[in-house]
């Protein structure tokens, strides 16, 4: 009990003092996950929009695949990327394993189905009606597609933030493909695992607090988006 209290006090002093190790880990986490989310968004929003505009009957198989990938345990996703990037794998020559790039790739792999699936569901609600309205007003294909995306902006933003929340909190995949190398591939979640094992609770708790805070922010934003979306 005292240990825990000490840990908490120590953790807050690390945060307040902007401990360099802690800052470095937090920044790497944010860098990896934000990059992954940007890449995923660029892939997933067009794909999800395309699927969302097709009649559900025609995309049934695709839906099942996407929903399966959405629910894939991150560590399994990590394993797949590990095998692809490992020296004997097809992309081994690139030498990406145990680098931040590998972690970004793994997170893209995890986030893309989530954002695609949620975008698709969001578009499906009224996407075809929006598309037809846009076309009847003289929009060409690009403007019509852009209008569809714009009308579903709350759903899409929600999808992106949900994806970010998943990858930033994920530990299995980044541990496998990143290797949790200090100063290079150590992110918040893997650091917590390691420091807890070593008994360095203060850093672990400090990072835990920051993760919780992030989660709070993410969910507040999501909550507001959903409220905004509803009143529309």
């Amino acid at each position, binding site marked *: 009990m005292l240990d825990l209290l000490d840990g908490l006090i120590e953790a807050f002093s690390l945060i307040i003092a902007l401990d360099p190790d802690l800052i470095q880990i937090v920044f790497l986490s944010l860098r990896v996950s934000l990059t992954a989310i940007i890449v995923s968004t660029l892939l997933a929003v067009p794909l999800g929009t395309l699927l969302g505009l097709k009649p559900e009957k025609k995309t049934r198989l695709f839906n099942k695949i996407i929903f399966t990938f959405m629910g894939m345990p991150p560590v399994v996703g990590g394993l797949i990327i590990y095998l692809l990037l490992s020296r004997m794998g097809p992309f081994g020559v690139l030498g990406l394993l145990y680098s931040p790039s590998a972690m970004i790739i793994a997170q893209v792999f995890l986030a893309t189905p989530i954002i695609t699936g949620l975008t698709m569901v969001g578009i499906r609600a009224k996407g075809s009606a*929006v598309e037809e309205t846009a076309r009847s*007003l003289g*929009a060409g294909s690009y403007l019509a597609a852009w209008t569809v995306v714009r009308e579903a902006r709350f759903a899409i933003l929600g999808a992106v933030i949900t994806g970010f929340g998943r990858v930033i909190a994920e530990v299995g995949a980044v541990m496998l493909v990143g290797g949790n190398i200090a100063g290079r591939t150590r992110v918040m979640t893997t650091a917590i695992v390691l420091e807890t094992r070593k008994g360095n609770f203060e850093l672990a708790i400090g990072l835990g607090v920051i993760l919780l805070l992030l989660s709070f922010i993410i969910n507040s934003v999501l909550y507001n988006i959903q409220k905004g979306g509803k009143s529309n």
Partner: protein
Amino acid sequence: MKLENINKEYDREVLRVDSLELNKGLIYGIIGPSGAGKSTLLRIINLLTSPSQGAYYFHGQPILKSSRELINLQRKMGLVFQKTLLFSDSVWNNVAYGLKARGCCREEINDRVGLLLDQVGLSDLAKRRADTLSGGEAQRVAIARSVAYDPELLLLDEPTANLDPYNIELIEEMIATLNREKDITVVIVTHNVFQARRIADKVIFIDKGEIVEMGSAEKIFTDPEYEKTRLYVEGKVIS
């Protein structure tokens, strides 16, 4: 605008039109029971749905299926859907949408949208978000949005369904004004025969996917050719 030997099949044939010609400057009322094919006809006229067979002429020119031509032609028409959808944006931006889609410059958009909103009495709503409008206001905005780019033909699919008498009157006035001042040809689908009688020059009665009768409003309502038409306009059950 002219259709010849058009038919449309989904799982079964839902519409067949041997010949239909619309003349400039008139208001056409399409009446008929629910499921008769009224919306399908409007969508075919708007080139939003392509017919299973048949020929389509605009100003006497047959229309081929190249997408460039379709979009140019579609841009000469405005369609207000049975289930209206305004973009979640300001009223102003909704009305400006068609002009932006046509690549109009900013000043032109500002002038024309401003003028139109004045004409149809919606200026006060310009800055309002479309999702905060009442049903009647939303419907008027939707009509304004579909005429902002000066289409030759305005297609309205039950624009006053579910509205109160006051808003129905406003919208009917608006349609009459647009027809008079901008010389827009109007096709209005309605299942309210009284509305057709009030505003239409010509009335088309559709039942079970076929045009039963088309004629001047006067004729259709006082001396129709067919028994079926007479029963329908008198509000009787037709089978």
